[in-house]
């Protein structure tokens, strides 16, 4: 794949450019993207609220600010594709079509949750929706995603595995190990580095040498940096990347430049960055504001139309919060179930 890969391996995004994607998405497509992103935003805000009320415990990593990444990529996946990610996973599950009720009830640790309350924020799965977690060990999602891809190839089912990681994960040894194997065996895996600029509290400049999208170059894996605050740019890059991977050419790395508005987790005061930096991103680069403007401009979408969507989303989230509080806790005897698949 030599020249094709090498040409792509040095593609760096101009993060200040306005996306100029052709063909322009239809009004329906834009509305769908808007709706998906808004659901994640509102869901996460509600989760933050429930956390503050003590209804959600433990670690809770919110996705607010990063919505365009998973929404853009998911919008161009095929049904047989599989997804695996890290612990910042609520958005990925919603994008994969998992129900807000099931995700929220898992956050409250109730029976109606995807893992019946046994997994929590970081550990949810849905084989039916092709979502394989939800992994709490930084870097693990890349190896598991490589394995999902191995199985796609083995079964010849035409699927691609989308393996998400953060910029922090990108430094793990197993990521390099997986790049090597995936390139060697031409596995159908799209590695997505969600670069939200901070590995917990350590900025890119302090934790990563070189460019993350270029780290596959030595293995012949094309890499590309994309503006992750622009859902159209993400969508266009993902479409191209998925085509490449699905055609049997092997893995592809998308480094998606994004930003999380909240701390690393609920307990993080985020003192390692200036408030002005956060405010600037919120005011000038917000992915949901951006698509709103784009829709108004391209299709003359009215505020009333958007308000109706907002209302619909609010209702879904409200219902999920109610469901998550009403769903019963597991019976005490469930402590002992699900350790092993019973054989006899």
């Amino acid at each position, binding site marked *: 794949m030599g020249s094709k890969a090498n040409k792509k391996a040095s593609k760096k995004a101009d993060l200040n450019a306005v996306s100029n994607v052709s063909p322009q998405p239809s009004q329906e497509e834009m509305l769908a993207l808007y709706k998906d992103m808004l659901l994640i935003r509102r869901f996460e805000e509600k989760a933050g609220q429930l956390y503050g009320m003590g209804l959600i415990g433990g670690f809770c990593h919110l996705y607010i600010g990063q919505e365009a990444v998973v929404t853009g990529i998911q919008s161009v996946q095929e049904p047989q594709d599989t997804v695996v990610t890290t612990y910042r996973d609520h958005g990925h599950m919603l994008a994969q079509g998992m129900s807000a009720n099931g995700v929220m009830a898992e956050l409250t640790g109730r029976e109606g949750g*995807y893992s019946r309350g046994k997994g929590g924020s970081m550990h949810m799965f849905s084989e039916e929706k092709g979502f394989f977690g939800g992994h709490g060990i930084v870097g693990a999602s890349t190896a*598991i995603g490589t394995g999902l891809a191995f199985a796609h190839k*083995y*079964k010849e089912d035409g699927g691609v595995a989308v393996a998400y990681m953060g910029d922090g994960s990108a430094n793990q040894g197993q990521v390099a190990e997986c790049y090597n194997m995936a390139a060697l065996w031409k596995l159908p895996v799209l590695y997505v580095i969600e670069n939200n600029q901070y590995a917990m509290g350590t900025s890119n400049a302090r934790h990563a040498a070189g460019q993350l999208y270029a780290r596959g170059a030595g293995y012949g894996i094309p890499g590309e940096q994309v503006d992750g605050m622009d859902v159209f740019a993400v969508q266009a890059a993902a479409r191209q990347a998925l085509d490449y991977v699905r055609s049997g050419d092997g893995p592809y790395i998308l480094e998606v430049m994004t930003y999380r508005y909240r701390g690393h987790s609920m307990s993080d005061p985020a003192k390692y960055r200036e408030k002005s930096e956060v405010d600037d991103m919120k005011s000038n680069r917000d992915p949901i504001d951006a698509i709103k403007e784009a829709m108004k401009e391209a299709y003359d979408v009215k505020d009333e139309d958007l308000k109706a969507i907002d209302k619909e989303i609010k209702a879904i989230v409200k219902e999920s919060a109610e469901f998550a509080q009403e769903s019963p806790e597991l019976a005490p005897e469930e402590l*002992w179930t699900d*350790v092993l698949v019973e054989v006899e």
Partner: protein
Amino acid sequence: MTIQVLMPALSPTMTEGNLARWVKKEGDTVESGDVIAEIETDKATMEVESVDEGVIGKILIEEGAQNVSVNTPIAVLLEDGESADDIQADSGNNAHAGNIPCAPVSDPADAPSATMSTEIAAQPAGAVVENRDILYAQGTVIEPPPFDEATFMAEGTVEQTVREALRDAMAEEMRNDDTVHILGEEVAEYNGAYKVTQGLLDEFGDKRVIDTPITEHGFAGMAVGAAFNGLKPIVEFMTMNFAMQAIDHIINSAAKTLYMAGGQLGCPIVFRGPNGAASRVGAQHSQCFASWYAHVPGLKVVSPWSAADAKGLMKAAIRDPNPVVILENEIMYGQSFDVPTDPEYVIPIGRAKIEREGSDVTIVAFSIMVGKALEAAEKLAEQGIDAEVINLRTIRPLDRYTILESVKKTNRIVCCEEGWPFAGIGAEIAALIGEHAFDYLDAPLKRVCASDVPLPYAANLEALALPQTDEIVHAAKEVCYQ
């Protein structure tokens, strides 16, 4: 003085080999570095180079000779000015080794070399129990799953090495289920670093028998992902020591996911490889991981001793819908036993085997220590002590029932393992006995373990550090107050 060329040890555990071919013949002149013969070990065919210069005076072991012990003189080399007549004069002299210096290898008598008897001690009948795993987790003592080993043995057996039995079990399951595949370092083209996967590439091709880079963390995690997505991987670690690189995925990704997913996503996978000490390979290549993996809910852990164990447990592991760790033993790979020929000889995980019935003391062991325990039992019998030997076969879930029933009968117990004592399997069994059979004990429990030090390289110290037959004999006599 003529030089004797000795049968070389070409691997840490080699005790004998076949003289496949002489490359040089009597009268040939050789220089150091010349290939003089080809030796077939149980793992590979290797060339033997001459260390010294001279003329091959006499070939002592003919081409094609089988099972030539390491250090047996195979030829005599004449130096300048010597003739064949000098050979006679030198015979009986302790000439220096004329080839690769040989490490003292483990005494073949350390483990039963002959095929073990097919006679079977009486075993608990076992019982089908609903929610077995839950009861086990709650600490309940449950009868093991039913299994009629005697009938399998009576219906026909074949003599096999442990290595062959492991391979055949994998091949049979790969024929039955095309989602089963094996990956690891050197498993395909090299036919296995220890030749356990010999022939699998030829039969199943490179889609299902996959050489990986040396990248344990990565390929173990990758295999877990493949298991999530509908495949049944067998992950070979060249040795279990290297699996420490991968233990995060074995535990965090494979063992815990079913629970974290509320029961909806399982991980059918086998992690296997040689465990424990081999011979003179030093501290980093000689650790027993039984207690590490046995500690973890969500994993099953088996550790075969005989070839029959290997066959039946490997098949059970591959068929099991849960992650299973198989702790093999390099020294056992070459040893032969009778193995039932029935392809449905699948040993239930969680069931121990009483290898020898006895009434005076219970000796519990697993893996290579079973052979030492049986040897100890023979020695004890000569001294009037009738020992019962239990081969655990499965470490987790431990067959508590069989151990406890035995102790209730003998009132004395010795636990043997090649691992370290602290928080080891013996410590777990001690707790089991303390909790469930305290009143039955006529003497405090004894453990025979590796010394609590990293395994030394020096032959004398290594022998001291590893648990030996005589220590089992000694411990058994102590608990019998003899």
